[in-house]
């Protein structure tokens, strides 16, 4: 057992050497905020992610793109603590990640992100109540009023000030996602994880949501990871784009090799200025097309 472990560690350091060199962008940082060290994830024989090495500075907006089944969501689940990596480790501020989801990492899913049995206001106030009332799960009296006031402020910020007493089922899809974002941000998490949050929204509303998300990101300087299927969304929003793809495919054993980060592209924040276009470099676009066909 210990032999295997040490072999894995040795393999990891080699992998780091050969893998870090071309893609590292924050090598100058003394200590990265999030460090992914030789992470593998496999389910049975199926390798989903292999040899993942990343360093992410605080306040980066990473968009994760790639074909379906390339481990983007798996990577997000690892960051969330919903799953533990089969090999390797993820460090948050030098400490290994907690192995359960907790209040330090906020999350917004594509669906089922808000609680249907609570009003909009209570949905957000819940996050303020739960950590402070480990026994009852709710605050009483003045502390409850304070929590609701704070929640209302957050809701005004995301543009839901007029719908405080409604239930989520009465809201449109876009408004529900605004609520989910408010719910995550009221916890003041250090990392925000978004799993295709706007995938089910129509294009006009999606644009509004992009604007809101960028505003909130600039204001809070959160570290954001966002999985998206929409390449242009990835380029518009991110300050860094991570492309997941399988570099090796064995046609006789499709599960034998996993996906890695094949492109790690820093983007300039200036693109967020109005009027700036988010064009895709031609060479990159070509390689994407082949990647999609191959999948």
């Amino acid at each position, binding site marked *: 057992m210990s032999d295997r472990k040490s072999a894995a560690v040795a393999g990891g350091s080699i992998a780091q050497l050969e893998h870090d060199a071309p893609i590292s962008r924050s090598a100058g940082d003394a200590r990265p905020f999030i460090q992914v060290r030789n992470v593998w994830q496999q389910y049975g024989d199926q390798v989903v992610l292999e040899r993942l090495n990343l360093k992410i500075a605080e306040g980066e907006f990473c968009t994760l793109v790639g074909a379906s089944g390339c481990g983007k969501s798996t990577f997000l689940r690892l960051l*969330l603590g919903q799953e533990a990596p089969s090999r390797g480790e993820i460090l948050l501020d030098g400490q290994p990640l907690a192995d359960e989801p907790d209040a330090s990492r906020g999350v917004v899913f594509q669906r*089922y992100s808000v*609680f249907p*049995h609570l009003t909009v206001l209570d949905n957000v106030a819940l996050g303020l109540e739960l950590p402070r009332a*480990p026994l009852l*799960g709710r605050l009483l009296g003045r502390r409850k009023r304070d929590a609701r006031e704070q929640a209302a402020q957050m809701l005004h910020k995301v543009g839901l000030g007029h719908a405080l007493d409604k239930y*989520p089922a009465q809201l449109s899809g876009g408004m529900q996602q605004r609520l989910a974002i408010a719910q995550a941000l009221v916890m003041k998490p250090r990392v925000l994880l978004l799993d295709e949050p706007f995938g089910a929204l129509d294009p006009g509303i999606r644009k509004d949501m992009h604007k809101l998300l960028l505003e909130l990101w600039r204001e809070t300087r959160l570290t954001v990871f966002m999985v998206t299927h929409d390449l242009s969304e990835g380029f518009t929003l991110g300050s860094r784009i991570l492309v997941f793809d399988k570099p090796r495919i064995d046609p006789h054993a499709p599960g034998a090799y996993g996906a890695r980060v094949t492109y790690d592209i820093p983007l300039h924040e200036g693109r967020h200025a109005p009027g700036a276009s988010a064009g895709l470099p031609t060479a990159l676009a070509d390689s994407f097309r082949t990647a999609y066909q191959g999948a």
Partner: protein
Amino acid sequence: MRPDAKVQKVYLYPKPVDFRKSINGLAALVELDIKVEVFNPVLFVFLKRLGSGLAIAAVAGLCLGVAAGTLPLFGAPLSPLLTVLSMVPPLAILPMLFIVFGLGELSKVMLIVIGITPILARDLEQRAREIPRELLIKAQTLGANTWTLILRLVLPQLLPRLLISLRLVLGSAWLFLIAAEAIASTDGLGYRIFLVRRYMAMDVILPYVAWITLLAWAMDFSLRRLTQLLFPWYEGAKA
């Protein structure tokens, strides 16, 4: 029972009767027989039995369902046990209930509880498992521990479903109640039905059946209204 060995089949053939007459007549007869007025409150004891049976079953079913559906530690042993227990026919162990709980109120209430709790528990367990994983994870990122997760997320989502399940098992609850009352009781609706059954008096039994149906429907209706009133967010209560 057979009057003659040569007779192959016996048909019971009551002639057409006027319900109103026979009700009054048999009511008088029954009053003489059991010395209780027809609309005496004693006749409503069945509601107390049914109500307490349903209430105990609801609480027990909710606790078992939540434990089995949300906590893998309890779910692993509890879930198969509930499956087996729910297969035991409650009426078959009725004599045991009479031995254990006596011939009084308790055994009748217990028959309802034993008959219904496993059904409720299994339904709620299933519903608890159907709560999207995303919601549980979201609650964890909002700082919930296992206890507050159950308190603020699982329980509120299961309560409307509990009321719906109660509506569905009302029929079985009546069945168990009438069976228990018919066998060992001197009051209640089931007892009355079995009393007049001796006279083959369908013209009295049918009004009783109509009365039970009306009561059951009223309970179903009020449970539905209660669900709508208490849980306005619950979509299943709209229909």
